[in-house]
């Protein structure tokens, strides 16, 4: 041990260095985000709450009941109820058990008509397990709730058209899928006002 190390040891130099650092940090800006009051913006393509896309033209969901999502789902949390009618196969209910889901977004990739989406919405905790089992109505409602908050006019999920696969091998509906137009929040508000006035 040379003299310098000895002096360092006696005068607690490394302790004082640490103290200097913490003192510096005491007066630097904190990195906290005060969560319920301010929220972090998630990046586009975040895999959050499930929703069924509401077709802007028909006002209904786009699911065709091909069962691709149920097959691909690793945690088997998607259940589709179908009925055979004169028109052909009709999807009567679409159920996602969100408490089982592992949010891999394979269903979004597999869906040939881009009917399903994992939205950027991440606040959907609930006191009741039943509320986490989304049926068709709830999934469409999720979409409405999500689009109300969405800041842009169009929405497009990056998992709809999985990159890396040659576009010529996508189904036609997937290939032609453009950004979905969203009713602006203002319009929705105006409609609600009109409804309340009329009723």
């Amino acid at each position: 041990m040379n003299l310098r190390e000895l002096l360092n040891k006696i005068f607690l130099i490394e302790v004082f260095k640490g103290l200097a650092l913490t003192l510096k940090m005491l007066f630097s800006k904190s990195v906290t985000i005060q969560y319920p009051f301010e929220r972090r913006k998630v990046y586009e393509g975040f895999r959050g709450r499930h929703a069924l896309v509401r077709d802007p033209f028909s006002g209904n969901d786009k699911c065709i009941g091909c069962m691709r999502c149920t097959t691909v789902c690793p945690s088997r949390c998607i259940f589709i109820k179908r009925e055979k009618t004169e028109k052909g196969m009709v999807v009567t209910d679409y159920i996602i058990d969100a408490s089982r889901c592992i949010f891999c977004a394979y269903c979004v990739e597999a869906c040939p008509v881009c009917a399903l989406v994992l939205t950027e919405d991440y606040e959907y905790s609930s006191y009741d397990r039943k509320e986490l089992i989304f049926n068709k109505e709830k999934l469409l409602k999720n979409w409405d709730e999500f689009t109300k908050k969405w800041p842009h006019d169009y929405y497009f999920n990056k998992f709809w058209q999985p990159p890396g696969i040659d576009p010529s091998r996508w189904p036609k509906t997937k290939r032609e899928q453009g950004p979905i137009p969203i009713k602006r929040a203002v319009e929705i508000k105006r409609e609600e006002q009109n409804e309340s006035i009329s009723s």
Partner: protein
Amino acid sequence: MMETLSVIFVTIIKTAIYFGILMLHVAYATYAERKVIGHIQLRLGPMVIGPHGILQPIADVVKLIFKEDIIPSNVDRRIFTIAPLISLTAALSTFAVIPVNDGWVISDINVGILYVLGIAGIGTYGIIFAGWSSNSKYAFLGGLRSAAQMISYEVALAMSLVGVILMAESFNLTEIVNKQQEYWYGMFLFPQIIGYFVFVVAMLAETNRVPFDLPEAETELVAGYFVEYSGIRFALFYLAEYLAMFCMSALATICFWGGWTVPAFLLKFFPFLEIVPGIIWFILKVYFHIFLFLWLRGTLPRYRYDQLMAIGWKVLIPLALLNIVITSLFKYYH
């Protein structure tokens, strides 16, 4: 008869005022701790209740008082309930002799330092009782650690104050402060720097603070001796810990920093300092020490049990003895 009664009455009034102000300070010391540690760690600390969380301590107290009082089964009920009271009473009693300004003291006894050290030693019983009666292995180990730690560091603590006593030629705390004014440097901090170092380290250990917080080492013993306590009983331990911090800070201020006085050489250069009341000086100095506690907590890791004992016996006590020898020689030849 009337005189005795009036003395008792005045003492009670004094005690009540002292107690009230002290409790407010303790409550806000918890707030200060959370804020300081928070900002050191780039967090904000409590922010929700009141502006910048200023009402947080009050909310905490209300919550702790109204919480269900849980006494686990198989504990030694009598000792379990009495342990926090012992800790708190001991911690509060020390303040009886601590002067905050010239003459502002409840009981100006002539063996002040001895009284403080003795009463602080009683506080250990509360911790040992808590650890023993909880019927929990973690609490038991915490209690054992604390007993050994406090006993060995009390020696170093007392030794470090011997130098001060030698220089002040008194055990009375007010006397010690006044004596410091007679020297040109106005504080025992300068001649007693070794003693001060030993005192600071021993005070950290005595109050179970980082880096000597072994009795309640969170990641080893979960919470140490009060692991089974909750609600108001837990709050009493918590209070006792903070009161001990205040007590030790006040002792450091009085013995080494000249209490409520301003050093003479500083007054020469900055004459305007004279208008600052003594009590403000005192509180500032105490809060510097409280900040030191928090600052160290934000910086240092924790010692191991055997290392802690080694430091106490092999480093601090020899240093304190050295300090006593130097001070005695200084006194003899001066």
